[in-house]
């Protein structure tokens, strides 16, 4: 997903951007239909609160981080599964960033609450006064445009790697898989709290006294899951986050491992040049800081929140686009010269 914005800024390549908008638009329509037919009950989801400057700032940090880190949290996981040493460095950066950001959690929450606005509005449908309006005015025209691109051959770009899936096909498949997980689990996919929890587990191992004092690792909040309520948080305990996000993370790494083995591509890759290694690590730290500041990573906001027009997520996307621009400039001028 890092490439959605980065490829536009660096190469004027809009293919990933188009695939991303197709995915979000399809999801918006499917989730809206699921709401009408009462497959999902909480809508707009209670998971997305009122917007604040923290969503924008977090998105900005995350955007810089995902460009410098060579990919977002999910792509870091699947590249790790395929043997990428650079992604392993990014992964370590995310874990350290999660721990350091946890120390500043009270400050971040205070910033978020003091800059919150639109006190009674969490979604675009609250502003437009109708749930159907954003779907009709934004999602359906976007799908129609994608259909027109398909008819004029503007989706085609040949890839030579075995097993390569066209981006538009990937968008369709992901839209239905993600909608199915929302219907089954009752909440959007997420991994950022899982990463923070992993930092917490490592903190307990190596710095138990300090970890015990960090408030962020003690916070447990009720979460809607599988139609019921279960507590969850970033603390190093078995809870709803452990039971949902750890299997997702392990599944992405394991799936990429099996897939790369099957395609004859798995190999523990060589180390990247020092400048790129530093970029990957810093990118990981920034992604963790951004996700904690924004209240979620790109998976949560761009795949979970944007299709339900959550205002927090819209701000996150604007921030991430700005961050990706800054990251692209830094990458080109400093990291890869």
């Amino acid at each position, binding site marked *: 997903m890092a490439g959605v914005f980065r490829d536009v800024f660096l190469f004027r390549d809009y293919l990933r951007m188009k695939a991303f908008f197709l995915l979000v638009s399809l999801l918006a329509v499917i989730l809206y239909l699921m709401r009408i037919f009462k497959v999902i009950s909480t809508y707009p989801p209670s998971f997305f609160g009122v917007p604040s400057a923290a969503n924008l700032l977090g998105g900005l940090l995350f955007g810089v981080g995902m460009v410098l880190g060579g*990919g977002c949290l999910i792509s870091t996981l699947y590249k790790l599964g395929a043997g990428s040493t650079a992604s392993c460095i990014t992964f370590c950066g995310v874990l350290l960033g999660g721990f350091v950001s946890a120390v500043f959690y009270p400050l971040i929450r205070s910033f978020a609450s003091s800059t919150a606005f639109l006190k009674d509005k969490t979604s675009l449908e609250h502003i437009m006064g109708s749930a159907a309006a954003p779907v009709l005015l934004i999602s359906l025209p976007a799908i129609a445009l994608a259909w027109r691109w398909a008819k004029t051959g503007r989706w085609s770009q040949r890839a030579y790697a075995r097993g390569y899936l066209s981006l538009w096909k990937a968008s369709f498949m992901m839209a239905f898989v993600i909608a199915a997980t929302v219907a089954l689990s009752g909440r959007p996919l997420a991994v950022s709290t899982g990463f923070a929890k992993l930092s917490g587990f490592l903190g307990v191992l190596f710095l138990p006294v300090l970890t015990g004092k960090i408030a962020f690792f003690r916070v447990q909040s009720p979460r809607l899951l599988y139609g019921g309520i279960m507590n969850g948080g970033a603390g190093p305990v078995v809870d709803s986050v452990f039971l949902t996000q750890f299997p997702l993370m392990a599944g992405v790494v394991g799936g990429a491992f099996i897939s790369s083995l099957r395609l004859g591509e798995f190999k523990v890759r060589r180390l990247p040049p020092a400048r790129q290694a530093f970029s990957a690590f810093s990118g990981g730290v920034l992604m963790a800081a951004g996700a904690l500041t924004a209240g979620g990573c790109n998976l949560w906001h761009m795949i979970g929140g944007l299709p339900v027009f959550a205002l927090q997520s819209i701000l996150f996307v604007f921030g991430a686009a700005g961050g990706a621009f800054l990251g692209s400039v830094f990458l080109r001028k400093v990291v890869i010269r």
Partner: protein
Amino acid sequence: MERTVEDIVLDIRGQICPACLLITLSELNNNKERLKGAKARMIVKTDHRDATRTIPGAAFAMGYSVSVVQKDRHYEITLEHEK
């Protein structure tokens, strides 16, 4: 008499995304004269599977012919200027 074509080998395995495309574009530019004069061809070694989409796409738009083969857990992308 048969002309010899020099191979410019660019080994970018292990590098972060999107270094593959940025470095390849830069090297194509640095070796433009030799490549356009058909005195050389560029062979890019990459283990980044998305590079098999992005590098051929960009190179083709610049007038290069492209061939890609998978070799021992990486890809070799050969770029030659079309005559």
